């Protein structure tokens, strides 16, 4: 091999000689042809390696081309290309491409890294050439070469070059061997250095490709995870997602988005369908909001009613934003979410109604208190009398409200109303209540009857049966033919006289209560005691007429 390698070095002087002497023409021609052929072959090998790298095929093919080319150029008997790779898991591994010897010949070959003679190569230091590696004092007599088993690559001529990247990183090493000593020349050193350069380019290209692949793989998996998480979050939040191509009006809706409009996943649902499904009263507002968001690239955020194909009216909250903004400022694509907010809207509506109702009740109660004050003032003879009567009536009203509040303002039992008014006045022990059927009063009826009982009890305490120790009151009721018949009967009290003028109490009972509850209330001033006969329709008391 040494002679071949020298052809390149001696070629110029041989050609110079040719000019001097005509006699050696044939020999010179032959040398010239041989040199040319050699040069052509060398070029072809290098071109083949370059092409393999340039073609960007798989790394095994490329490194094989490199090591085969090296063997061919140096006329070695075998060659090996050890190169480092970093796999997808980030592990560094050393691979090997072989030439001129079966892989089995290397089976018991020690790992190159552990072998002293390879050190300069893997350290990236220099090309190493030895005419006889077995006798070379530089590398001592150590294993593996001395201890190499019979038949295992009996290398004598040895040539190696580190494969180093442009940045100085050692990527691997190229090794060539021959069973005869003295086969490699200094020219071969330059050749393997060149081949090593090509090998470095090949390995580097592979590393770059792997890194790009790994990065895009990582990117893809990050994106996949994000998409999965987003989809989960949207599903968990019952959110649909949608996208609109501004120019083509192509509209994509997720399954949940379609569901918000009462559509099945396999039903088509385009932009025209979307607009058509929006409640007439909200449609213009929706299209305006969409146009504004597209024109200004501003947020799209709107709540509107939609009519489902089955006729249901639902509320949907849609939000979106321009996906990409062109220099003019208008959106090319809108994307966003949609959410069924019917329950929330209904709750808000309920709350609004309840607040209105509360306000209504408070205002009515204030008007009631105003009325009590107004009328108490008309009948009171002194400020002290006014205060006493007014406070007692206010407390009677308050007692009824307490009862109603305990029942969530759904009403109160007649028995409870009577007991609480009697108790407030200390008349419980001397009143016999003979209850009839349970009667559940509406809040309004409870307030009215509560006030009525309060007036009766107050009168009894001040002027009637309860004003003397032996006096007694009987409260008896029954329900007959849809009417409540309630009788308040006083006995054993002072002698009763028909009053000269009617006070607040009698007016409230005979006029107010009777009118409000659509029945009759009659006060009878009998000598042996006052009686009050209430005849009130159950429908008004229990609120059945509203049903």
């Amino acid at each position: 091999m040494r002679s071949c390698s020298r052809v390149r070095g001696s070629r110029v002087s041989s050609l110079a000689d040719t000019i001097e002497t005509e006699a050696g023409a044939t020999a010179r021609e032959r040398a010239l042809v041989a040199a040319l052929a050699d040069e052509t072959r060398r070029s072809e090998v290098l071109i083949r390696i370059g092409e393999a790298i340039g073609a960007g095929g798989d790394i095994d093919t490329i490194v094989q081309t490199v090591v085969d080319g090296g063997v061919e150029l140096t006329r070695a008997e075998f060659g090996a290309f050890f190169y480092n790779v970093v796999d997808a898991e980030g592990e560094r591994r050393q691979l090997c491409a072989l030439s001129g010897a079966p892989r089995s010949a290397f089976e018991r070959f020690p790992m190159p890294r552990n072998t002293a003679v390879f050190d300069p190569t893997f350290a990236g230091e220099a090309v190493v050439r030895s005419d006889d590696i077995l006798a070379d004092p530089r590398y001592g007599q150590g294993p593996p070469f001395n201890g190499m088993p019979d038949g295992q690559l009996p290398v004598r001529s040895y040539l190696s070059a580190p494969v180093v990247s442009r940045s100085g990183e050692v990527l691997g090493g190229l090794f060539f061997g021959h069973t005869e000593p003295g086969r490699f020349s200094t020219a071969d050193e330059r050749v393997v250095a060149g081949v090593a350069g090509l090998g470095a380019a090949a390995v580097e290209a592979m590393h770059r490709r792997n890194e790009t692949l790994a990065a895009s793989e990582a990117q893809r998996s990050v994106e996949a995870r994000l998409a999965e998480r987003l989809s989960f979050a949207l599903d968990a939040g019952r959110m649909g997602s949608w996208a609109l191509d501004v120019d083509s009006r192509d509209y994509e809706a997720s399954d949940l988005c379609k569901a918000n409009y009462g559509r099945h996943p396999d039903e088509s649902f385009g932009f025209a369908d979307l607009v058509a499904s929006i409640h007439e009263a909200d449609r213009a507002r929706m299209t305006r909001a969409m146009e504004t968001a597209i024109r200004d690239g501003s947020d799209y955020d709107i709540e509107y009613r939609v009519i489902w194909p089955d006729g249901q009216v639902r509320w949907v909250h849609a939000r979106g934003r321009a996906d990409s903004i062109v220099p003019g400022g208008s959106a090319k694509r809108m994307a966003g979410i949609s959410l069924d907010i019917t329950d929330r809207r209904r709750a808000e509506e309920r709350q609004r109604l309840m607040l209105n109702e509360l306000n209504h009740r408070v205002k009515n109660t204030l008007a009631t208190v105003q009325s009590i004050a107004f009328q108490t003032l008309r009948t009171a003879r002194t400020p002290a009398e006014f205060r006493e009567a007014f406070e007692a009536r206010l407390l009677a009203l308050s007692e009824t409200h307490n009862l109603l509040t305990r029942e969530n303002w759904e009403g109160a039992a007649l028995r409870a109303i009577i007991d609480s008014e009697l108790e407030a006045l200390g008349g419980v022990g001397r009143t016999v209540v003979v209850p009839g059927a349970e009667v559940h009063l509406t809040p309004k009826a409870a307030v009215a009857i509560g006030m009525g009982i309060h007036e009766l009890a107050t009168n009894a305490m001040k002027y009637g049966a309860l004003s003397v120790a032996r006096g007694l009151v009987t409260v008896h009721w029954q329900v007959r033919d849809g009417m409540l018949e309630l009788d308040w009967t006083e006995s054993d009290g002072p002698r009763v006289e028909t009053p000269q003028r009617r006070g607040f109490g009698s007016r409230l009972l005979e006029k107010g209560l009777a009118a409000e509850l659509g029945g009759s209330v009659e006060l009878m001033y009998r000598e042996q005691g006052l009686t009050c006969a209430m005849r009130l329709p159950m429908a008004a008391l229990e609120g059945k007429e509203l049903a």
Partner: protein
Amino acid sequence: MTGDCLVGLRVLVVEDEMLVSMLVEDMLADFGCSVVGPAPDFDAAMALATSAEIDAALLDVNVAGRPVFPVADALKARGVPFAFASGYGAAGVEGDHRGAPVLQKPFRQIDLERALTGLMTG
């Protein structure tokens, strides 16, 4: 100025709260008005609105759970002026009747007097 023009006026009162209707009755009596009703529910109100001899009306917007507006329509058809009384205030008045005077409960006697005077002179 005030008061005299109300004397003898027949005023329909639609009010389901007995204490409030008693108050309104007293106020109207002070003006020299005579009270028609008071009607404690929708049917009674409608009957009086369509057939009773009345010069003006004070209508509770919500009478025993029902909106009073059909009664207002009947009065309008007869050319009888009316005002609303409501715990909801002006917000409780719907539709064609938004222009009618509204007394928010509780109201003063003088508010009622002004409202009625407005109805009879406006």
